[in-house]
């Protein structure tokens, strides 16, 4: 069983370049940047997860141990990604943490209904962001026992 932050993979799904940059910076400050992979749209995220896009060497992108998902994205938004991930076998095991600027009740209801594991609101300040990253590291990467996922070489489910 894989555990320990040294081996964890995190997929960040967000279309806002600034937000992504800030998030990467925060992860870097917490020495977690090596674990972070970014998908800049809902489509990109789904393609990666379902194995439709491949690595340069042809291998499948390894499945992340945690997905940080923004909601507000064009075309395929966070809800859609969440819905698809949580309906697919194996993929549905991956914990999805919503990371959004919305605190609306409707959004919260819908995401939780669809099976989101956690819901975080993006803070305005960098301090806040650092704090969130630390908490993510402590909880999702350290304390939380990750779900069993197939190895890098394994075939992804359809």
């Amino acid at each position, binding site marked *: 069983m894989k555990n320990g932050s040294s081996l964890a993979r995190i997929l960040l799904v967000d279309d806002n370049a*600034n*937000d992504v*940059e*800030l998030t990467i*910076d925060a992860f870097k400050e917490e020495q977690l940047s090596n674990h972070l992979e970014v998908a800049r749209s809902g489509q990109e995220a789904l393609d990666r997860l379902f194995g439709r896009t491949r690595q340069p060497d042809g291998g499948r992108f390894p499945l992340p141990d945690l997905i940080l998902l923004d909601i507000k994205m064009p075309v395929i938004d966070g809800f859609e990604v969440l819905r698809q991930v949580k309906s697919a076998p194996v993929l549905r095991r991956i914990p999805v943490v919503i990371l959004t*600027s*919305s605190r609306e009740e409707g959004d919260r209801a819908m995401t939780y209904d669809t099976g989101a594991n956690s819901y975080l609101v993006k803070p*305005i*300040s*960098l301090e806040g962001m650092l704090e969130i990253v630390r908490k993510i590291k402590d909880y999702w990467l350290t304390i939380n026992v990750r779900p069993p996922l197939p190895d890098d070489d394994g075939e992804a489910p359809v």
Partner: protein
Amino acid sequence: MKNRVSRPGIIGAGVIVVAAVLVGVAGYNAYRQAFGTIRAQHSAELQVIGKLKVAQIVDWRNERLSDAHMGAAGAFTGAVVAGWLADPTNAAFRTDVVARLDLFTHQDPGPAAQLSQYDDAILAAPDGHLLLSLDPVATELDPEAQSLAAQVAASQEPAMGDFVRVESSGHVYIDVAAPILDASGRPIAVLILRSDPSLYLYPLIQSWPTPSESAETLLVRRDGASVLFLNVLRHRDDPALTIREPLSSTGVSAVAAVLGRVGEFEGTDYRGAAVLADLRPVPDSPWFLVSKVDTAEILAEVGDRGRAILLLCLLAVVLAGGAVAIVLSVRQISLQQRLLRSERDRASVARLHERVLALARDIFLLTDPSNRIVEANAAAAAYGYSREELLQLNAADLRTPETRATLERDWQAAAGADGVLFETVHMRKDGSTFPVEVSSRVIDVDGMQHRESFVRDITERRAAEAQLRAAAEESARLLEAEVSSRRALLSILEDQRATEAALRESEERFRRAMVDSPFPMMLHAEDGQVLQVSRSWCEITGYAPEELTTTAAWTELAYGERRDVLLAEIDRLYELGHRVAEGDYQVRTRSGETRTWEFSSAPLGRLADGRRLVISMATDVTEHRRATAELRESETRYRDLVVLAPVAIFVNRDDRVVLVNDACLRLFGAQREEELLGKSPFELFHPDDHARIGERIHRLREIGDVVEPAEEHIVRVDGRVVDVEVTASPFEDLGTRAIHVVLSDITERKRAEAAVRQLSEELEQRVVARTAELDAANKELESFSYSVSHDLRAPLRAISGFASILARRYRDDLDEKGRHYVDTIVSSSDHMGVLIEELLDYSRIGRRTVRAEPVPLGPLVTQLRVTFGDRIAASGGTLEAVEPLATPVGDRTLIERILANLVDNALTYRRPDVVPHVTLSATRHGRTLTLAVADNGIGIAPEYRERIFEVFARLHAEEEYPGTGIGLSIVRKAARLMGSNVIVESTEGAGSTFSLDLPAAQKRSTPS
């Protein structure tokens, strides 16, 4: 007087005797007590001395034993002795041994002095033979010494012998011995130390510490069947160890001691004297110590005390006697004085007596026991004798021969009682007699029974008595005659009265009948006099009987101006031969009221003086007439009512219309009543309604039930159908149940109802449409603010985030100003973020429908404590909820919001040096409650009290107190949405209270 035994004397003697007895008893007790005390003292003394001496003796014994032991046990001594024994001839050894022994008898002072109080030191063989003695004369040891030596050698323990008396010399000694052992512990010799008891022991025993004439201690031991006295006795000169006392004399103290008695003992001693003794054994020895003192000594001591007591008693008795004597003599003196006084009084009384007697009119005689007259007063001259003659006479001589005989008898009575009073006849000197009354008494004169008598001439009295008697007889006779004549008169009168009474009774009955009659009645005569008028006449009219004494008076009062007419009518009554009903008359009462009286009169014969009488009776029919008139009136009214009523009315009797009013005719479009009368009700109504109508008619008529109004349809004469509302009720009419039916045309009403219905439908549709519009608008607003917040926040995040990176990573590349700018960018972005949040909040408030339900405040308070817990704890302040918290009716979210914002403000706008205390309360007054949050913070100046509720309005800079200025506007908006308003009371520098009124939740039996 000399025979009499003086009572005081007896008492006095008695007192002395009693005193003597008491004193004697007290004295005796004192004596006994003294004896006891002294005896006890002595006993204690004996005991103390006995114990002391025993102890000393024991000490002495122990010392001796120790001496012997030490003397014998020394190794050196043993060696020397052993050496000598081995070679008895060796002079040097012998000298050594002697020197050793000598130590014990040596008289030199110095360290050895202790040892040298022995008469002799002897060395003996273990079997008792003498080996060596300092006494040159001794050749062999006494048997006692021998046996002691043997015993010691055998037991190898030091031991003390007993007192031994040498017969030849009379000398007494006492030995103590100890074995001398050789190196192996075998006894080779015995050291005997002989001491003279008279040096120490006897003096010890024989001395007595206190001055006493007879006390002594003595030491004894059992010797066979007797007790041997071991020391020299005080009261006998015999030397020690010579006196014995047989054991049979158990009363002797020494014997008792030997026999085992210990402690206090009363008995005799060796010389037979009574003693008090203390008996004590000497431990570890066969000896017993007796300490004794003669009882006589004790008594002698007591005797002194006793004598003193006796003297005291005698003195006391003497004193008592003296006191009594004094008392008696004092009494005597006073008695004599009294006697003297009484003598003087008596003398004066006697003188008075004499004077009285001299002047008295009554004759006074004093006769001696033989009835001889010894004294008479001046009045005695009435007898005709001279004084001298009188004094020669006997009392009997004064009596007539006839009465003389009874003298003694008369006087006999005087002897016992307080005197006697009797009448008799006395005789004068000249033989004439006169009746007398004698009062006589026996008195004691110089010890003899004299008689004193007062004699009164009662001649005149007698005469008077006779006259009186005669007069009385005469008057009695006259009285007799009068009484009999009066009796005759009385009987006549009684007959008369009886008849009169009978007559009156019947008159009375008649009168009462009239007076008490329930009807007004009047009995009047043709001259106008009213003989009788009934009570009810007066009660109803209010006139008193005195006012109605004539018919004229009555008519004046009752009819006023019409009087003459009425009087004429009354006059006509007297002509009547029969009863007549007169009809109604209006009578005026005293109070001015007019009453209707129906009169009837009848003739009632003539009076004695020929006047004709008439009796008139009236019935007060005022109410009756009035009722009848009213009834008629109401009938008319009702008829008119019905006929003219605006609603159609008809009466259904026996399924026939028997009455219709004008409105009914109009309703049915008929011209005349006849068009409707007689028809069946079913003909009037539409066939569709017939079934229901029939049922209603049945209920009304058969059961008499009231039916509810119903909507029916009538058919007019022209065939048109009209909507009506029918109200029907049953009533009794001519013996059957008829039905009273009211119809009202409801065509208009129905039309109005339809219109209203349609209107409300339209309204509902409009409302639905409107709500849909509002919802749409709301949704639009929501998505607007949603996007606003989201889209505004993203760039804000970028600004803040990158600026922070700058501040952190490139800090060193910036100068101070640069750092300051960057920090400002970051903090401003944060602030904007908060503003956006709050604006969103503000807009969100009220988009939801405002609910109205009871909101228990307990859970809200708990939540507040959680939310603000850290801030409260950090400031050291408190958030307090005042119990009981009433429950408001409102929107829960809004109330939550209001409270949270108010508490936030209360904690934020605090005085820096004062610990914040926030108090939350919900106080109920009837149907509303006041929700309030009070703090002890900085307060608000009056001029700003409205401004603070405006959006973005702030009174302080961001550095002083953090905030956006939206909190209170949210609070106000939320309050307004619930139909309330927030007000603030504040004292600048002391604190503020924000409050709003909400409806209070009413207690309901079932939870909402």
